[in-house]
């Protein structure tokens, strides 16, 4: 029973409301037209207060339209001023030792730089996505995790559980995070093969958006 209701609700939420601008304007236009005309019709029979009718439409219609349009935007998406600019260089050591990685030496392939931490909950949801996409684009794109305000022991345990596959660099003193203007983790930057930032994800990435950003840059 509740499953059935959940399904109805899902249908209402997903299909019931056209969330793109033209769809919303279309539905709203028709609704306003029908209500407006029926008001005129009723007024012929002296049943309706036309001032309230049209005054109400004049207030309600734009309000609903504006709110519906709001679904197009993610208020949490803050555009980075770094998009279109050269990626700040860093020279960071992997948390488990090994040779330091200098970003400016990695040109020629697009790079994905993911800022994360073990104490961050959304990082857990996006990590499998990053690992899978990194595996799929192995050899065609570089993936770097930059671990923000964390300890090597915890990172090792976390990666042991969640799986790794690409270098995880320790950002001692948060220097890289500051250079990139990281506001909170996770944040993910896409850098093209010339070292220019082309996109920034705030919050967890999903596979489709990540591939959409990367595929034009990856040589097939």
């Amino acid at each position, binding site marked *: *029973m*509740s499953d059935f*209701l*959940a399904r*109805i*609700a*899902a249908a*209402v*939420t*997903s299909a*019931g*409301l056209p*969330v793109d*601008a033209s769809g919303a304007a279309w539905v709203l236009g028709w*609704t306003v037209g029908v*209500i407006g005309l029926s*008001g005129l019709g*009723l007024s012929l029979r002296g*049943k*309706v*207060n*036309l001032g*309230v*009718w049209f005054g*109400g*439409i004049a207030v*309600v219609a734009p*309000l*609903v339209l*504006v*709110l*519906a*349009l*709001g*679904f*197009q*935007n*993610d*208020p*949490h998406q*803050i*555009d980075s001023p770094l998009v279109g600019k050269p990626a700040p260089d860093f020279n960071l050591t992997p948390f488990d030792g090994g040779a330091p990685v200098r970003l400016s030496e990695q040109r020629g392939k697009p790079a994905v730089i993911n800022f994360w*931490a073990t*104490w*961050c*909950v959304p990082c857990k949801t996006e990590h499998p996505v990053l690992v899978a996409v990194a595996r799929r684009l192995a050899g065609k794109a570089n993936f770097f995790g930059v671990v*923000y*305000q964390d300890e090597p022991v915890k990172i090792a345990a976390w990666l042991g559980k969640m799986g790794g596959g690409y270098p995880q660099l320790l950002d001692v003193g948060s220097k890289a995070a500051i250079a990139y203007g990281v506001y*909170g*983790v996770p944040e993910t930057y896409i850098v093209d093969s010339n070292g220019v930032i082309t996109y920034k994800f705030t919050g967890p990435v999903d596979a489709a958006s990540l591939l959409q950003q990367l595929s034009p840059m990856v040589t097939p």
Partner: protein
Amino acid sequence: MLGQTGQFFVLLGLAAAAAGAVTGFGAGATRSATGWLWARRFAYLFSFSMLMANVVMVYALLTHDFSVRYVAQVGSLASPAYITFVSLWSSLEGSILFWGFILGGYVAAATWLNGEENPSTMPWAVGTWLAVATFFCFLLAGPANAFLPAPVPVPLDGPGPNPLLQNHILMVVHPPTLYLGYVGMTIPFGIGVGALFAGRLEASQLVPLRRWLLVSWGFLTVGITLGGWWAYEVLGWGGYWAWDPVENASLLPWLTATAALHAALLPHRRGALKGWTVTLVLASFLLTVLGTFMTRSGVFNSVHSFSQSDIGPTILVFLAIALVFSVVLLALRIDKLEGEGAVTSPVSRESAFLLNNLLFVALTFTVLVGTTFPLLAEAFKGVKLSVGEPYFNRMAVPIGVAILFLMGVGPALPWGQASGERVRSQVVPPLVVGLVTAGLVVAFGFREPWSVLALGCAGFAGAVTLREMFAPVTAQARASAAAGGAGGVGGWFAVMPRALAASHRRTGGYIVHAGIIAMIVGIATSSAYSVDAELRLAKGECKPFEDYDVCFLEARFVKESHRTMSIADMRVTRGSDVDLVSPALATYPRMGTPIGSPDVRTTPGYDLYVSVLSLDPEAVAVHIFQKPLVVWIWLGCAIAGLGTTLSLVPARMMRGFVASPAVAASPVAEVAGK
């Protein structure tokens, strides 16, 4: 197991609400006594189901039953019990469940108290309440289901609720109070819809309408202020109001409800403006739905936003239906309501009320436009912008000052026609008080014109409020002196409690006015004359701030079960006064950014407010503020809350207190009825 039980009660509530809505409207249309009886039974059944569903959820939370997904999301073995309890409304699904509980409480109370009156309009009202209830039960049964099972394997522990909610005891009080205000608007909405359907609005409907409106208005006032107080005590930026979209969302229904409370006196007194009153009542409810949408849709970014969820479109559909329903109903039925009376005199209390209403509506539109404008700009021009404090302050301050001025003018004028001489004798003395107040604050060093004007108006309105509040006392003291009782000041104080109690609703109203005036004084002063500085101190170092000497003694790091506190112990010296303050930062495992825990030292004159920006064992950076009269805001709100409560006390409870032959024969009743 608990999950299924909870689901059962939610579905029972949905069935009862839907059946009751249909039965209520049916009984309204057909005037069927049986239908009316069943509508009430369904109303009680709905309330019972919501109560039980909440009991089940609280039980699941307290027993840490992580097989319920909501408990797995917000529960944590490490959280203290009261925080576990707060988790009921700390996240989206639980907050809607709690919403259902409050709606259930209101519906049951209003059905019980007013169900026997107005058999021609109340079925419509109950039907409307239950239609709203149907929507919220639908949310609970579908898109915001709190009782879904947790993913297998069942987790052994959860992350705990949002850290912002764990940081201060006010978070236990602020959301429920605000919900009581928000949800309560459903009751006057139903009564208004009933009045429109039945085509009549008489005293017997106006009384419950005003009472319920006042109940939610009171909770809304206190809830909004508690939110400001929480922001002030926790967020650490030294302010209490930021014109954040969700703050605005709570202000909007407050503005229209304030207007409606005043408007509702006009049909009561003069038989005028019934349609307008109902319009404001309907608008107040619709704005609460708008507020719900703003908080829960993820369309607005704010400290209040719940996590991104897909119930936004569902709430928007409900909002659109409610808006269209209200507009169509108003347009079709408003002409039936117009009463016999009219506002005739331009200089009278009713025209002051009308002007007050226009200003409140203008302010509502101002805030509404400012809040939704960023959405509009982004949709059509693709730019992200936020309409900040300058817009709101520029627009709201003049309207607010005008309203404050009217708060003095309105009560000073009599109902009906006022003679020029009467107006002069009533208005001129308080006006002098206002001018003197303005002169005093200028002499005291205040220069910012709007704050001087606001304080002058506050003096004027305050003088009128106090005079009107005690007018019955003066009248009765005179009468009792004339009858041979004690005269003079002693006599005045002797009759005061009874005289105030005899007209307790009126007294309550003026107490509310006094509280609001105190709040405005606090807001005007603290926003215009706050001083602040950022200090960076090494361990043992001292620096001056205003006439204080601020020293950093040491840093302490305390690990608690659910958080780590980084505390900066500091000494603040002013003359011979030495004070130890310990502002802190709290770090929660779930959240990267630490949350402030400023130390606020309150005195009647000003607050000293110290907030940590960063802290390590050897150095601290603090933001330190001296803010005048902030405490007036919280006290004013408490006074307004007390006044509201006094107004709501049933007359029969007051009667025992008042019953005395001297009072019965006194002119108090006459004055009170003026």
